[in-house]
């Protein structure tokens, strides 16, 4: 019942007239388990140390990583910092106003921070240059340029691609003077330990699950769930902020779909990284 209701509601202006006859079809013609076309562009922002632009259908997200130096925190003297920041400016959609980050942006930033922490995408110990004295801080700024649903997937993907693109200058501490010397000519890439990929689903009426929801589908959904997996087919995190309940079996389906999606995304990222000529 629910799916045909949604299809009738949204199909008013849709050109996919043939969709009315087909069962289990979404307004843009996709299957229930089908993702939108994904494109990645790496290294376009030269002022940032690493950058990536990801398009998931219409949803466009850009991530820029800037690396700075700071003293490590007192309680973790051998760790650097990774600070994510998701921004949903008024540019991307009429539902956001200009000003300080709203609820959704804060929730997205926290989600990205959790993914970084849980999946150990970068070991913070790798960012430390001298224990207790100097460490790298990676400021990852993720800005949404066009909001058409599924912002979490696109942001995680953009973050991963940007981190793979980061080149850090080599820093040495001069033994006699104790000052640090930065060599901007010699750059090293980051050591990416794991590759987490997020897959989001929208839940309708406790039973129906669709993958990669657009903004309209998200608004009509009764709940959402995001599953993050890494390349060893291990689960990094499951994010289900309230919404209608989900049976264990359905959740298992989500996890398997996420594992399949991970392989597709990994292949895409590897292809893009290989295509960039080393500077």
């Amino acid at each position, binding site marked *: 019942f629910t799916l045909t209701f949604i299809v009738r509601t949204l199909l008013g202006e849709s050109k996919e007239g043939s969709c009315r006859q087909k069962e289990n079809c979404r307004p843009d013609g996709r299957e229930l388990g089908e993702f939108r076309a994904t494109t990645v562009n790496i290294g*376009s*922002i*030269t*002022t*940032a140390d690493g*950058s990536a632009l990801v398009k998931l259908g*219409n949803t*466009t997200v*850009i991530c*820029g*990583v*800037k*690396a*700075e*130096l*700071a*003293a*490590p*925190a007192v309680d973790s003297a051998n760790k650097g*910092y990774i*600070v*994510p*920041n998701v*921004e949903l*400016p*008024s*540019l*991307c*959609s*009429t539902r956001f106003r*200009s000003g*300080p*980050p709203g609820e959704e942006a*804060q929730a997205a*930033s*926290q989600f990205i*921070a959790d993914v970084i922490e849980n999946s150990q995408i970068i070991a913070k110990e790798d960012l430390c240059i001298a224990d207790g004295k100097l460490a790298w*801080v990676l*400021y990852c*700024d993720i*800005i949404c*340029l*066009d*909001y*058409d649903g599924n912002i979490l997937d696109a942001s995680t993907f953009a973050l991963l691609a940007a981190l793979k693109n980061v080149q850090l*200058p080599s*820093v040495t501490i001069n033994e006699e003077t104790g*000052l*640090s*010397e*930065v*060599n*901007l000519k010699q750059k090293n890439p980051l050591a990416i330990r794991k590759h987490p990929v997020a897959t989001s689903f929208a839940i309708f009426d406790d039973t129906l699950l669709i993958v990669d929801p657009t*903004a309209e589908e998200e608004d009509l959904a009764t709940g959402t769930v995001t599953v993050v997996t890494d390349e060893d087919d291990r689960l990094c995190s499951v994010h289900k902020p309230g919404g209608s309940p989900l049976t264990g079996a359905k959740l298992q389906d989500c996890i398997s779909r996420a594992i399949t999606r991970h392989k597709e995304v990994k292949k895409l990222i590897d292809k893009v990284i290989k295509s960039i000529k080393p500077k």
Partner: protein
Amino acid sequence: MPLDHRRLHGPEDSQPPELWAARPRDAGGGEEGEESGAAPRDPCALRPLFARAGLLSQAEGSAYVELSGGTKVLCAAWGPREAAEPGGAVGAGRLLCDFRRAPFCARGARPRPGGAAEREAEREAAAALREALEPAVRLSRYPRARLVVSALLLQDGGSALAAAVSAASLALADAGVEMYDLAVGCALCRPPPGDRDASAAGPWLLQPGEAEERGSAARLTVALLPALNQVSAVLGGGRGGEPEGWAAALRLGVEGCQRLYPVLRHCLLRAARRRDGA
């Protein structure tokens, strides 16, 4: 500094690695290097501009402008919609502008998003943008309505405000807002006086790059309505010298805008064709 509860925090203070970069030459040799770099640049040369309209799905009108050398501006426009205050003065509509800089747009230190200095600079730029666009839009056709323009600077390679003005007028035109003309922006800067001749500053350069802008003694941004040949906004300051120099700079800026105009018109035509064809 008061703690910003809405954003995640890193360390309280961090510095960009460039501060400690080993300098390849010392101060004496450095100036010679800069002068020989500045000489070959033709002051009237315009940087190649790439413009494309109609690329965001959620905005009624959008435009992306890129200047070679790295300035990238994305702009979205909506309008008209109901004015926020119900008891507003009866009369022409309002144009609301917003200008944001991405935290990774500048070379060097990353400014803290939400900091007071950032917000002040953004507000100034938004006011300048509004000043440049208002004469171009037929606000009398949208009484009691508001038109919203939102610009985002992705990478700053010099002449950012000028590129934003051009992008914003393209976005408004793409949204179908009635306009008298497109507002085209052009920036100029004047390098500081050289070592040998302390009195005369260098010539005015059109569309400076980022390094030129940073080391300049005076800057100027001109916004022009080319078909009507009217200047809609002038924003500038610095130690430029005598008034004739500024007048010459304004003429140079106006000429630069006239030369950029065909590129922007062509971009709009292509967007309209694409929209009709789809």
